């Protein structure tokens, strides 16, 4: 059982996950350097898969490196770049090295990236991918061919409670949950009312009894960054008042942090939420500050701190 699965199943405290910034070069040492800014503050770290349709060091390589450096990886997989054969091979290859947590995404379109000429694959869609990876965990490929022993996988996915059709998002989350997603990392969002409605719907439908919800907050440092997301990232909208709050502040960088903190506190206050996922565009140590301000800091005395210590010896050393 993966550490993430154990923590989410125990439910004794909110679980915190983060994301390793995409990386291209510099050897495993470069992974280690970036990981040091995140891993001590979170329970698990996402290894992204060509985020925003830009090529980078692969999800498999990064997830394996995170694991070997003593942290807990969550390997993201998008449907955009590979067909079902390649994706199953990636999961099995990563599992050989001890990667257990998988997060299945549809993925941004190729037109979001710097190689819009690329062929988009989408041989599987998000919910199908969840079921296929769950099948691997049950001991068979999509073909039915047996895998013995089955890899110990913990399968999750994403959902966007903030994008239309809003009334359909709980049903879509349910489809993912019913087909094997044990956790859902939610899209970055700024509409508290939409998150509330979504989480309430998930609780009411029974989804949260088997699938953990991890809303996502995003650390930014300016109104410009928020405006960029609002304008250029499909599926993310930032309300006028949030933009005004940051742009009108004497110290926009600090106000931007405070906005994120408020959103995180609100998300964690909702019954049915199991933790929080943090994305960081500040790269100034704010992940640690945010986790601390939320009262979720790991220290050597806490059980999670000891766990971290036992697993994270290479990072500490």
């Amino acid at each position, binding site marked *: 059982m993966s550490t993430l699965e154990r923590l989410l199943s125990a439910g004794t405290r909110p679980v915190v996950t983060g994301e390793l910034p995409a990386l291209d070069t510099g050897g495993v040492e470069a992974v280690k350097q970036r990981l040091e800014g995140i891993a001590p503050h979170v329970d698990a770290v996402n290894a992204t898969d060509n985020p925003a349709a830009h090529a980078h060091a692969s999800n498999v390589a990064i997830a394996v490196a995170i694991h070997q450096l003593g942290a807990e990886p969550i390997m993201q997989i998008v*449907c*955009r770049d590979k067909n*079902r054969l390649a994706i199953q091979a990636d999961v099995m290859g990563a599992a050989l090295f001890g990667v257990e947590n998988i997060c299945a*995404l*549809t993925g*941004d*379109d190729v*037109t*979001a990236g710097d190689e819009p000429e690329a062929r*988009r694959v*989408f*041989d*599987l*869609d*998000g*919910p*199908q991918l969840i*079921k*296929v990876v769950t*099948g691997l965990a*049950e*001991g*068979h*490929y*999509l*073909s*039915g*061919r*047996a*895998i*013995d022993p089955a890899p110990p996988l913990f399968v999750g996915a*994403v*959902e*966007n409670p903030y*994008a*239309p*059709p809003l*009334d*359909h998002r709980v*049903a*879509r989350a*349910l*489809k993912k949950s*019913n*087909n094997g997603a044990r956790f859902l990392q939610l*899209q970055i969002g700024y509409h508290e009312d939409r998150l509330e409605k979504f989480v309430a719907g998930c609780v009411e439908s029974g989804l949260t009894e088997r699938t953990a919800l991890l809303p996502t907050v995003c650390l930014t440092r300016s109104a410009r960054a928020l405006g960029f997301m609002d304008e250029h990232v*499909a*599926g993310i*909208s930032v309300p006028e008042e949030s933009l005004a709050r940051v742009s009108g502040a004497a110290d926009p960088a600090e106000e931007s942090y405070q906005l994120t903190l408020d959103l995180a506190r609100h998300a964690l206050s909702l019954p049915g939420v199991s933790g929080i996922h943090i994305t960081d565009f500040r790269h100034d140590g704010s992940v640690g500050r945010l986790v601390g301000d939320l009262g979720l800091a790991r220290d050597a005395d806490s059980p999670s701190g000891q766990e971290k210590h036992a697993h994270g010896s290479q990072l500490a050393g």
Partner: protein
Amino acid sequence: MTDLLTRVEDAVKKPVWDCRTCGQCVLHSTGMTCPMTCPKTLRNGPCGGVREDGGCEVKPDMRCVWVKAEERSRTLPLLPHKWREEINHLRPPVDNQLEKTSSWRNLFTGRDRVTPAGWSGEATAADPVDWPLTSMGEFEGPFTTPFHPREG
């Protein structure tokens, strides 16, 4: 696209639904909105990139296929209740072998409901002795299917 049935189907469905001849039609379960017209060809609901105004991530001027499908699965008159609910069913991965074949024929023969053994959770032998076609034979109907056994 050689035989008559496929051409007739195409002539009917192309103008009305912008049919992409995937050969495994699910229109009835998606509010009579073809999911293959989604730029990502998603068959199980909207991606996370739907714009605030309901526009498609890839083609902002086009209404998201799934926003349309979800709405029409609720509001389209004459749609049987059973079909309305099917929008929430999990549709299996596309069988690319059926592309450009008649979905009508595949419906009548049952060919469009054939999924890999692993999709329904069945594990077969670890050593694939006579894969992959043993389960396909029983679905061969009176029509010639475009399905050719792979060399194994």
